[in-house]
Each structure stands twice: as structure tokens, then as C-alpha cells.
């Protein structure tokens, strides 16, 4: 297992590229989902205000 | 049509002559940026000679960009630009004359003063002449490309910084071939290829940029 992660001495380079890639992709998805949620909440708030 | 071009040129140039600040600011900026480099990297003649063409060209890019924001902003504020949009003359012609006037005010002075700075950086006579020639062909391209950016950022907050972000990447080919020609002379190589490519860029920019600028002004004033 440790040998797999060491990647013959290149582990640092490989895992920092892969890590950054998947971290950023995950952040992009997370941010978009949060944005969608806040927008829906805002729309609902406006709708409630209009009702009153 | 000719009357229109003459009117635009005359108007732009008289405004520039009356205020004078635009020409002088650009010019002094150019000189000061170049003066900073020997102070930054040291006064060794060999180093300066090596990086001289690049410094001169980068300074020219920045200087010509500095005055871009003012290309349309005054006409935009006093409403002249709206009038130009609905004028009977095609907007492309008006825009092209304005770009030409901008070059005469901000590009041409750089070409004229460049030999002084070039000799100061230790370039020889032949390199200096080629530098002047590349600046003469290259600075109009900068005004032409810059005009599209100036039109797009018209009336946008933080327009000046944004403009540099949009325009500088597009200046790269001019920088490469402009500075490359001077370096080629220093290395004793042929410069014709560089000059003809710069000329080709100029023709291409002259054909496309006025249309792009006119379109960008229409979008900005919509």
C-alpha cells in the first residue's frame, strides 16, 4: 500500500496534481449547489413578501 | 466622407494640442519605465543591451495602453459618441479616424523619442533604426486592438484595469515580433520575415479592428 502511494519516488508530484484537480472539481460542484440553494431561498423569500 | 475624416482628425488633434497632457503623460511614462530598468537590474552595459529591445517594447505596450481609456470616454460623457452613432457617415469610418488620431497622439511620439532611449540602453545604430521601424509598424496595431477593448469597457466601473486585462494578452504577437526583429539584427540575422509579419498583422488589424470597435461601441451605448 505504502509502495503504491510512493509511486517509485514520484508520489509527491502525482498526488499533488491529482489532489488539486479533484479538489477543485469538487469545490466547483459544491459552490454551484450552494448557489442554487441560496437562489431558491431568495426567490421563496420574495414570493412570501409579495403574498403579504 | 473625406470631410468627415478630416473633421474627426482635426477635432481630436486640436483637443490633444490644447490640453497637451495626454501626449506628455504617455511620453513621460515611457521614459520613466525605461529609466527604472537600469536602476532595477544594474548598469552593466551587456545586460542592458541584451534586454534593451524587450524593455523598450514592453514599455511601449504599457504606454500606449495607458491612453486607451481616454479614446472614447470624453466623447461618451459629452454625448458626441451618441451623435456619431446616428450620423449619416458610417460609424466604421469615424472610428478608424479616431484610432488614427489616437496613434498620432500616443504612438507616434514614442516612435520619435525611442532612438534616444535605445542609445541610452546601449543599442547600436542599426538596432536603433530597426527598433524605430518596428515601433512605427507596431504601435498602430496596438491602437487598433486597444480600440476594441476601449469600446467594450466604455462606461464600465474599473474600466482601466479591466481594459489592460483584456488587451495585453492580445498584444503578445506584436511584442514577440517587434522585439524579435531588434534581437535578430543584433544577432546578425535577417529581419525581413519579422517586418513582413508585423506588416501583415497591421493590415489584418486595419481591416478587422474598426469593425470590431464599431460593434463594441454599439453594444456599449445600447
Amino acid at each position, binding site marked *: 500500500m505504502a509502495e*503504491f502511494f510512493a*509511486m*517509485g*519516488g*514520484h*508520489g509527491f*508530484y*502525482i498526488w*499533488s*496534481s*491529482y489532489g*488539486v*484537480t479533484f479538489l*477543485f*472539481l469538487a469545490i*466547483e*460542484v459544491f459552490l*454551484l*449547489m450552494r*448557489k*442554487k440553494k441560496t*437562489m*431558491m*431561498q*431568495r*426567490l*421563496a*423569500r*420574495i*414570493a*412570501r413578501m*409579495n*403574498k403579504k | 466622407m473625406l470631410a468627415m475624416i478630416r473633421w474627426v482628425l482635426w477635432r481630436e488633434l486640436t483637443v490633444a494640442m490644447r490640453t497637451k497632457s495626454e501626449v506628455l503623460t504617455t511620453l513621460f511614462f515611457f521614459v520613466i519605465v525605461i529609466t527604472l530598468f537600469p536602476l532595477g537590474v544594474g548598469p552593466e552595459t551587456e545586460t542592458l543591451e541584451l534586454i534593451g529591445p524587450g524593455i523598450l517594447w514592453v514599455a511601449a505596450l504599457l504606454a500606449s495602453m495607458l491612453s486607451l481609456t481616454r479614446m472614447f470616454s470624453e466623447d461618451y460623457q459629452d454625448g458626441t459618441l451618441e451623435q456619431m452613432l446616428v450620423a449619416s457617415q458610417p460609424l466604421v469610418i469615424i472610428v478608424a479616424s479616431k484610432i488614427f488620431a489616437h496613434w498620432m497622439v500616443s504612438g507616434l511620439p514614442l516612435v520619435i523619442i525611442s532612438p534616444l532611449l535605445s542609445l541610452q540602453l546601449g543599442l547600436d545604430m542599426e538596432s536603433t533604426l530597426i527598433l524605430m521601424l518596428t515601433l512605427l509598424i507596431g504601435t498602430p496595431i496596438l491602437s487598433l486592438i486597444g480600440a*476594441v477593448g476601449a469600446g*467594450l*469597457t466604455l462606461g*464600465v*466601473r*474599473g*474600466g482601466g484595469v*479591466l481594459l489592460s*486585462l*483584456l488587451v*495585453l*494578452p*492580445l498584444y*503578445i*504577437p506584436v511584442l*514577440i*515580433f517587434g522585439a*524579435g526583429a531588434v*534581437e535578430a539584427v543584433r544577432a546578425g540575422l535577417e529581419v525581413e520575415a519579422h517586418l513582413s509579419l508585423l506588416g501583415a*498583422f497591421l493590415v489584418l488589424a486595419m481591416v*478587422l479592428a474598426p469593425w*470590431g470597435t464599431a*460593434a*463594441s461601441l454599439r*453594444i*456599449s451605448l*445600447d
Partner: protein
Amino acid sequence: MQMLTKAFWLQLSTPKAFYPVAGTLAPCFMMLAVILCVIGLYIGFFVAPVDYQQGNSYRIMFIHVPAAWMGMFIYLVMCAYATIGLIWNTRLSSMMASALAPTGALFTFIALWSGAFWGKPTWGTYWVWDARLTSFLILLFLYIGYMSLQAAIDDQQKAAKASALLALVGVVNIPIIYFSVKWWNTLHQGMSVTVTDAPTMAPSMAWSMFIMAFAFWMYAIGIALMRVRTIILERERHAAWVQDLGNKGANHG
């Protein structure tokens, strides 16, 4: 029949009709992306052999090359959408162009980042002023310019048009910039490391790379659909159907 299909597509190209469609399609594409990614990485790490020249470091290629492809490809697709939006004034195409830009910039950045970490063990430095690397850096600048212009203009319609024009100027310039940088690089060859293509690739390496490219492609489509939904909500917030959505949310919450 032809009329009917045409009407169907026209109908679908309105933001209102596209919003729910994008909502159902986006998770499908995301699932596909995850599945392809797992397969691609399994082949890449457990099936593909160690390269006799580069050792294990070549495995960065499985994200580097697909990310680079996507960075360029998304720019072209974005320009195509922007042009369509500019000429025919179709709202949805402009929205798609805006939705693609951040993802394209992200892939360009990933290509640069992974390229740097591949370069260190292979050439000994993180960065060389190689033609391809430099061009990619400039591509990233073009993306950033596009997004900044769009963010700086308050009027959404105007922002879409202005950035579309900028994208067009960029696409005319890309070949010129690439050619100049390449030429500049050959002139200065003595100073930089020559980057040669990988020699012969084992089939499993090629497979892994292509599957990863598909995974990134599916991810790009999925994320663009997700983002276009938020853009639709933002730009159409005064439309009745968007306010109905808000009403439903108000009744639930």
C-alpha cells in the same frame, strides 16, 4: 412532422423549457463522469505498466492531457455559443457561453498545474517557457478577461453581448498568438528544454487517457447544465415562471 420537430427544438431552446430539462440531465452526466473516471483511473493506475523512461510520473498524463483538451475545446464551444447568441440574439446560447467559461478556465488551470508537477520530475523544473505551456497561460488570461468583462457590466444583456464580442476577438487571435509563441520559442531554443512527445504508448495508457477525457467531457457538460440553471434563474428572475418556482418554495418552506 418536420415542422413538429422544429417547433420542439425551438420550444426547448427557451430558458423556461430548458430549465427542467437541464435539471434532469445534469445528474445523469455527473454520474457518467464519476463512473468513467473510476474506470479510467483504475486502468491508469493498476493496468497500465510503469514507463521505462519516466517511471510512474507519466501517470499525471491521465489528467493533464484530457484537461488540456477540454481547456481548448470549451473555449471553442463557448465562442460558438457566444457567436450564435450575438447574431440571432438567442438568450439561451448566451447563457450557455457564460456557463462554460469558469469550467474552461478551471480545466486550463488544471492543465497548467499538472503540467508543472509533471515537468519537475521529467525536465527538472516546474516551469519552462515552452510554446505549449506559454500558449496555455495566455489561454487562461483570455478566459479570465472574458469572465471579468462579464462580471463588470451590470446590465446582463449588454454583458453577454460585450463578452461575446471579446470571445470572437480572442478566437481570431488564438492561432496568431499560438503561432507567434511557437516561433518565439524556436528562436530561443537554446535557452529552454525541448519538449518532445511521449514515445510509443502502451494501449492501456492510451485507453486510460481517452476514458479520462470522456469523463472530463461529461463533467463539463454536467457542470455547465448546473450552472446554466442558476444563470437562468438570475437573468429571468422577473419572469412569471421563475416567480412561480419561488411561490412553490415559499409554500414548502
